[in-house]
Each structure stands twice: as structure tokens, then as C-alpha cells.
């Protein structure tokens, strides 16, 4: 199987989808001729023409709003917001329009759109190129939220998202675009070309939405993570020597609660890790669900490791980023060590 970067895998997903279904259109800022600032859509305009892949004005509300209209017409738009930090102007269209169209019209109109956006920090992006807004989407009825952590999943999940009949937010951890990142910023990363999860099959395949993956089997503690934090959790488990079971959620909504509950009932302990700020973050939801469903199996309080409740700082990036040291400490505390 060919090895690809996450960027190539995501591009491949769009390529495969556009090739199979001429209703799929791709647009966004710099997405057409240039192929996007991360070059994710590179080559799609040349291959499919300007009416299938084109540049949009710098107007996020316009990008999502027009995509909603296109979807109501019968197309399947897959649009790019240049950074997740810039989805706020489009938030109204996403949460009040895309999310509700099926419900409010009783299925008369539907909204099968995908909104891709690079998310997360670890790239010295400062406050406005580092945010992780997933909780702002999972709180909204009617949106699905996906966060892949490797090229194989990214391709399969994106194809599934494009084929999904409902609006899907596709958050791409940009720190993973070129290789897995375990939080050790001072060490070189292994590129995806040398990593087994960089193996991406050619052609069409899907990874179903709503199914988590167990990245590391273990019996002492369950770690719930997604995106970049999957690798940070793995590094923390290795460094502490704790027999942690690491679950990569892959889809936050719908959530694979069965896999989570089965694992926590087995291990009796749970640590939740995400990059987004702690307060009212998605970890709070996960923690509540674990308490509700596994209370009598828990041998320690559920622990959360997350970004601090500050804006994402530039110079202090590595003090902000939930790295292996902080996750390791939480693992040890949860184990009572």
C-alpha cells in the first residue's frame, strides 16, 4: 500500500469522491488555482475544472452559506475554512442553518455539506491559528464532528463524511499533516512515509463515522483522546510504563460510547486528553458520560488534561500544549502513584 501524508490522504479522499460523483464540489479561500495554503486541494482544479473546484472570496459566512444553498439544490459541497480559527464568521450559518435545515423543514430540504478546517496548535500559530473549537460544534444539535489522527483514517473518514446525508465538520489536526507528533517538539518527527498509519489504500474506502479505534490495548487505565493527543497519550504511556488503553475517538458526534464504556469498565480508570481549553471543553462531556455509565466500576476520579483556559499564547506554546509530561502526571495520579 502506498504511504501518504495526511495532506495527500485528504486530497485523495476529495479526488476519489469528485471522480465518483460529479455532485461533489470543492471550494474555499485559495483552494482553486493554488490548491490551498496547506496545498490540500492541490491539483483538483486542474483535474476537475473550475466549476468543480474554485477560489472563494474571503468570506467564511459566504462560503458556508452558499454551500448550504448548493446542498439544498442537490450538490455535495466540501468546503475549506482556511483555519478553524476563522470559522466564527460562519458559525451562524453552521449552527443555525446547516445544522437545522433537515429538522426545521421536516426533510423537505437537507444539507449534506462537509466543512473542513485545520485545527489545533503546536505550529507556533499564535492565538488565531491554533484553536480547537470542537466543543462549539458538538454542543449543536444537527452537526457531526470528526477529528482524524492519521492518513488512513483521514481519507476513509472524509469520504464517509462527503457521502453522509448530514452536515459534517471535519477538523484536521494540522500538526499531524506531515507526521505523527507526540508532543516532543525538540525531537524530529517520523514522517508519515515511514509510519505504518501512513499507509493509505488507493481508490474508494470509508472509515465509518461514529466508531472509535483502540490505538493501544491496556488494562490499567483508559485514555480518551483524538487528533494530535492520541500520540501524546501514547508517548505518556510509554514514558510512565503504565499499561494504558488508548482510545482514538475519531468521531466526537456521534460518539462511540459503547467502546468507551467497555474499556473503562475493564480498566476502572479514565484520563481524558484534549488540546482545547479545559472549561466546558468536550472532555467535560466525556467525563460526565463516563461517570453516568461507569460509576460503580471507577477506582479513581476521572482526570482531564487540556489546554489552559487562556488564549493560545505564541511564545509560551510549549507550556500551553498538553504534552507527554502533563499527561504522564495525570496517568500516575489516576493510578494512585
Amino acid at each position, binding site marked *: 500500500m502506498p504511504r501518504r501524508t495526511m495532506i495527500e490522504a485528504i486530497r485523495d479522499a476529495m479526488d476519489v469522491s469528485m471522480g465518483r460523483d460529479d455532485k461533489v464540489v470543492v471550494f474555499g479561500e485559495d483552494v482553486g488555482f493554488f490548491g490551498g495554503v496547506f496545498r490540500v486541494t492541490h491539483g483538483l482544479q486542474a483535474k476537475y475544472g473550475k466549476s468543480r473546484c474554485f477560489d472563494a472570496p474571503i*468570506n467564511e459566512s459566504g462560503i458556508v452559506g452558499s454551500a448550504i444553498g448548493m446542498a439544498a439544490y442537490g450538490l455535495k459541497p466540501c468546503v475549506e475554512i482556511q483555519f478553524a480559527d476563522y470559522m466564527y464568521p460562519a458559525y451562524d450559518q453552521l449552527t443555525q442553518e446547516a445544522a437545522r435545515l433537515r429538522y426545521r423543514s421536516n426533510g423537505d430540504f437537507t444539507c449534506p455539506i462537509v466543512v473542513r478546517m485545520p485545527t489545533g496548535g503546536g505550529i507556533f500559530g499564535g492565538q488565531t491559528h491554533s484553536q480547537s473549537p470542537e466543543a462549539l460544534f458538538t454542543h449543536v444539535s444537527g452537526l457531526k464532528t470528526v477529528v482524524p489522527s492519521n492518513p488512513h483514517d483521514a481519507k476513509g473518514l472524509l469520504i464517509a463524511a462527503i457521502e453522509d446525508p448530514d452536515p459534517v465538520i471535519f477538523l484536521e489536526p494540522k500538526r499531524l499533516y506531515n507526521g505523527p507528533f507526540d508532543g516532543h517538539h525538540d525531537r524530529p518527527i517520523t514522517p508519515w512515509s515511514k509510519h505504518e498509519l501512513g499507509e493509505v489504500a488507493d481508490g474508494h474506502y470509508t472509515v465509518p463515522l461514529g466508531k472509535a479505534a483502540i490505538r493501544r490495548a491496556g488494562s490499567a487505565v483508559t485514555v480518551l483522546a483524538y487528533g494530535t493527543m492520541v500520540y501524546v497519550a501514547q508517548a505518556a504511556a510509554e514514558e510512565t510504563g503504565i499499561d494504558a488503553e488508548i482510545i482514538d475517538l475519531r468521531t466526537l458526534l456521534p460518539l462511540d460510547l459503547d467502546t468507551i464504556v467497555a474499556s473503562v469498565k475493564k480498566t476502572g480508570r479514565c484520563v481524558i486528553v484534549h488540546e482545547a481549553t479545559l472549561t466546558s471543553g468536550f472532555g467535560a462531556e466525556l467525563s460526565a458520560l463516563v461517570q453516568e455509565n461507569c460509576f460503580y466500576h471507577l477506582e479513581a476520579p476521572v482526570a482531564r488534561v487540556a489546554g489552559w483556559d487562556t488564549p493560545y499564547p505564541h511564545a509560551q506554546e510549549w507550556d500551553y500544549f498538553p504534552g507527554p509530561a502533563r499527561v504522564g502526571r495525570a496517568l500516575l495520579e489516576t493510578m494512585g502513584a
Partner: protein
Amino acid sequence: MADAGMLRFHVPEPEVRPGGTPDFSNVTIAEAGSVPRPDIDVDPRTIRDMAFSIIRVLNRNGEAVGPWAGLLSSDELLEGLRHMMTLRTFDARMQMAQRQGKTSFYMQHLGEEAVSCAFRKALSPGDMNFPTYRQAGLLIADGYPMVTMMNQIYSNEADPLKGRQLPIMYSSKEHGFFSISGNLATQYIQAVGWAMASAISNDSKIAAAWIGDGSTAESDFHSALVFASTYKAPVVLNVVNNQWAISTFQGIARGGSGTFAARGLGFGIPSLRVDGNDYLAVHAVAKWAAERARNNLGPTLVEYVTYRAGAHSSSDDPSAYRPKTESDAWPLGDPVMRLKNHLIGLGVWSDERHAQAEAEILDTVIAAQKEAESHGTLHAGGKPSTREMFEGVFAEMPAHLRRQRQQAGV
């Protein structure tokens, strides 16, 4: 220049407030028939003055005059009159039903009936409107069943939207009427997206976007203009200027731009103003704009100059912010009376037939109301099942919603 002194903050005010005497003499109104009708492929730069004039067909004597006249047969005009009368009667009955506690809320079209009724007749089957809440005439003029509209207003067991939406927020794909959102202006850019999709698909259908004067201040209005002009989308961009948002007069949203139509000029979009109380003028302009869109000539911005004679909604009391007599002083008259007089002038209508038609329409509306009420009203009779509340959030119900439905015991 001399010392300018302290800065002063400017807040625009309407000409009069309650207690004052309404005076529209400053509103410049072009004479009927005086505005030329350019070819649809006109260079927009040559018709910039049309964004400041008003296209009118019916003159003070009820005659249809000038280059925008002569597009409709008298049968079509009689049908148009019936649509407007039906909408007015429907409104009166539903407003009353709201007062009787049969529904929570209602919004009338009083004085604006020509805009949506005449516009609908300029579209073809398959075209899509993205309306806001004062365009029910699009449905009435397209033959959408009044009973279904009422079922929606009552949120009863026959409500096609299962009680999920505020009254009057209809949806009908079949009748080219996009699901109404309570969030102002969002639909404007969605309409442009729909039109872009039609062009991408090499289809022949066009879209129409609808917005009120107050809501043009929203950024989605500007997003729509950018996208429509960039991609030459086949869309008619409608602005219904009925002078008022809720208590806020049009000058607050308009600022110093002169007219709402003038907003299109900076985008190179042909921009027209039309007498919104003149059924013939609205129809003629709508047809011109629709033809432009269908011929790959791109978007047109149309400002309908009209007056909201009624309250903003059933929750509003306009006497608190404008003179009670202001609507009588409005210089463009009542759209129903103007078309009626025109038809009488043509010799195809009379006061007697009008009175008879009014009675017939009232009977039809009452019969529809009875039928709708047999399915229930908001607080009495049949209503959509609570189970429905959990359906349709997604195409397939995810596990967490299934669990919540079980918890709700439905």
C-alpha cells in the same frame, strides 16, 4: 479651516414621530411610465441612475403606461388581484386567530401584497425562492394549499413541519419556497449558493433571494452581493423596503447610501427600484431580472419601495413609534385598490364584482380555516406526536438521541 471643536455623534431620525404629521413630500417619485426599459443585456454602468429612480406602470388614473406596461393579459391581472385579495383575507383571519389564542404569533403583509404575488408570476417551475417572513404571496400565487399553511401556523397534527417551526415559517420545495429561518439574512447568501449550483449543473433554474430593508445591514447581505457578482450567479436579489424594520426606520440600516438599490452599484450589479405597490411594475421588473438571470447575464438587485401598513408582527404596536396616519399618507397607495381601479378602467372589473369576490374569498378562507382547525390549533385538538421531536435531526437517529427519546418515554 477653523477649529472643528468637539466631535458630535450622529444618529439618524425619521421625519416624524407619533403625534406629528406624516409628510412624504420629500420622497421623490418618478412619474408612471417615465423610466426607460433597457435591454436585458444592458451594460450595468449605463443604467446606474435606475438605482435612484422608481419604475412605475400604473398612473394616478389607474392606466398602465410606459415601456414596462403591457406584459400581462387582463385574465392574468384578474388572477393577480385575486391572489392579493386572498393573501389579505388570509392575513386578517390568521391575525384574528392569533388574537383568539389559536396560535402564538402571526405576521401580516398588509400593503405589501403586490411584491410577492406579482413576483411569483415571473418565475418558472423549478425556480427557488429563499424568502423571509413577509412573502407568503409566493405560496398563495403558486397555488399552495391554504389549509396546509394554516396547519403550519397552528402547529397541529397536520402541520407538514411537525410543529418544529414558528408560525408562518413555511417550507415547500415543490413550490419553490425554501424553508424560512428566524435568523435574518442567512437565506440571502444561501440563495446565491443555490443559483451557483444551478449554474454549476448547467441547469436552467434560477433563484430569488429576499430580504427586508432593516436586514440588509446584516453581513450575509453583503456576502451575497460579493458572491453573486463574483460568480455572476443566476439570482434575483430582492430588497423589500417597507420603510420600517420593527421600530427602526429604514434610515438606520441604509445610512447615507441614498437607496438600497444603490448598494448593488459598487458590485457592478444592475440595480433597479420599483414601485412595490404596483402589481404591473413589480411583475415587469421581476420578469426582466429573471430573464437576465436565465440568460447567463448574472444577478440583478431590485428594491421594492413599499410601506408596511400593519404592525411588524402580532407582538408589535406601531403606534408607539410612528404616527397612526402615516400609512394613509403613503404616496404609493394600496396595491389592491390600484389594481382593482386599473381593471375597472379596462372594463373587465367592477365594484360589484369586487365586493362579490371579497365575499367569495372570505368564504374560501373560512372553509380552509375550519378544515385546518379540525386538525387542531396550538393549544387545542390534535398536535404532532412528541416522538416527532426526536426525528429528523439527522437522516438516521444516532444512539444518543435514541437514548434521550427513551428517557422522554415516547
